[in-house]
């Protein structure tokens, strides 16, 4: 599963869910929440981010709330993958459950805004095509990778339930 290269958007440490999905818009549709994603620290992000772009961050990305709209907003905006040195545990679970690939990459500090980034999660590496560098990333646990490949927990469960029902019907 090599993803095609995307442009890097670089953020710092402790980027929280209040920034990713501001509370003020939480009762609104996803389109509107996404429009305000990260606006308090980078007003250009939500309007200029392009499909396939990559979000780069330091430590503790997604800290804070359980609101999964924080991850969903990034998916909605077309972000293909997040690379951070570490994650808020809740965000990490939410992102994978929604099918957003999030990788732990200790060397995100070497990536600059606008660099072209490609990831190869199975090989545990991130390639910076602009700088011609390669960084290691931690593998996603196998059972979670399977879920991400399926598109997230819901399609994964959908497939599993369908298989279970088919099996039950076959036996019956």
């Amino acid at each position, binding site marked *: 599963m090599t993803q095609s290269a995307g442009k890097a958007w670089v953020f710092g440490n402790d980027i929280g869910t209040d920034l990713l999905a501001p509370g003020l818009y939480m009762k609104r549709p996803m389109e509107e929440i996404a429009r305000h994603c990260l606006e308090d620290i980078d007003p250009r992000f939500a309007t200029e981010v392009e499909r396939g772009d990559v979000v780069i961050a330091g430590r503790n990305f997604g800290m804070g709330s359980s609101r999964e709209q924080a991850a969903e907003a990034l998916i909605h905006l077309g972000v293909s993958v997040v690379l951070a040195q570490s994650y*808020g*545990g809740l965000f990490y679970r939410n992102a994978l459950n929604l099918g957003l690939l999030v990788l732990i990459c200790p060397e995100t500090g070497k990536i600059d805004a606008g660099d072209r980034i490609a990831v190869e999660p199975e090989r545990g590496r991130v390639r910076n095509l602009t700088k011609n560098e390669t960084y290691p990333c931690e593998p996603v646990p196998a059972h979670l990778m399977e879920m991400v490949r399926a598109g997230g927990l819901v399609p994964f469960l959908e497939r599993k339930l369908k298989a279970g029902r088919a099996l039950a019907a076959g036996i019956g």
Partner: protein
Amino acid sequence: MGLTLAEKIIARAAGRETVCPGEIVICKVDLAMMHDSGGPRRVKPILERLGAKVWDPDKVVVISDHYVPATDAESAAILDLTRKWVVENGVERFYDMQGICHIVLPERGHLRPGLFVVGGDSHSPTGGAFGCFIFGIGATEMAGVLVTGETWIRVPETIRIDWSGSLAPGVCAKDVMLALCARLGMDGGNYQVVQYSGSLISALSMQERMTLCNMAVELGAQTGLIAPDDTTAAYISAAGSGTIDPTEWQGDDDAAYRETLAFDAASLPPQVALPHSPAKAGPIEDLRGERIDLAYIGSCTGAKLADLRMAAQVLKGRQVAKGVRLLVAPASRRETATAASEGTLAALIEAGAVMMPSGCGACAGYGFGVLAEHEVCISSTARNSKGRMGARTARVYLASPYTVAASAVAGAISDPREFFSGAAV
């Protein structure tokens, strides 16, 4: 090698003799709690798509607290959907506008030591004060739990935090947590378990223990935990949930901890966290005199009965300073009733407090009382990220209910200890 309390609970929920930190196990969920924001409105479409039913409606608790009472058509629709969903799905444990989920859950007797619980809110670890393993999950994962009755967990290590000694008058659990946020940082908990112990913890009330576990999230922990004792048993019994044997759920003496940190409570001064992070906390001495517009006593962190009593201790017989607004949103309706009958509420109101409904309120910017551009607030809540409580240029300081009340009286950030020593303010 023995097991920590968290490992014992996880092993039991996974149907295993033992578990090791780092391994991934599937656990059966004893209880799933969700609220109006991340609950029915988000899980309903997923359950419909899957054509699945709730695995066990008796293990589900739904509590409306984020959008209560409705302020506009959108929040009214969210609450309407919530009320209909619980009926359609046979969920009888529904608490509508009874208070904040993390307070209502133990108040109505749903938490007992040894349970494996998921909550659809990041502050779910509040319930760890009752010796259960309870952590926050998002709505998609909650939908998965509702369908399958189980979820996965990477067995966390436990960080033990010992506090000895007793707190000075005017200092409380909130100060302990702000000091820990400053010391460990917002990711010091590393998505592991933070377990509190020591002579201070043993002496604390359940509500103060809840504050410690509540803010374990601000340390980046997966959950906070306190081993049950007689105080726990007394609370659970009073909540109508029968008797428990606290010795049944304890970590082994030879359990392995990731690390053990030790602190002395006696020397801890009141803490204030600067905008925009709880980790920017420090002794109040550094910030005294900073002018405020709003003093806020609210949220699962800072508006329990114990917190209201702290504020009332400072405010009794005093007045909120001119030009300052004091808003109080008690954590639950039942606690409001107790506060009313014992005179706590009167002390707050007579001092000039404006009472708000029990719910998440201004804390997450969902409800009433949010801040205008450039306003300054001191708040008993847990988070102060930019824009959270309203305008993005607003500045929110975090402190204990004592300090928030003292600051409301002075009109500027003030040391509550001065109110206890009889010094003039």
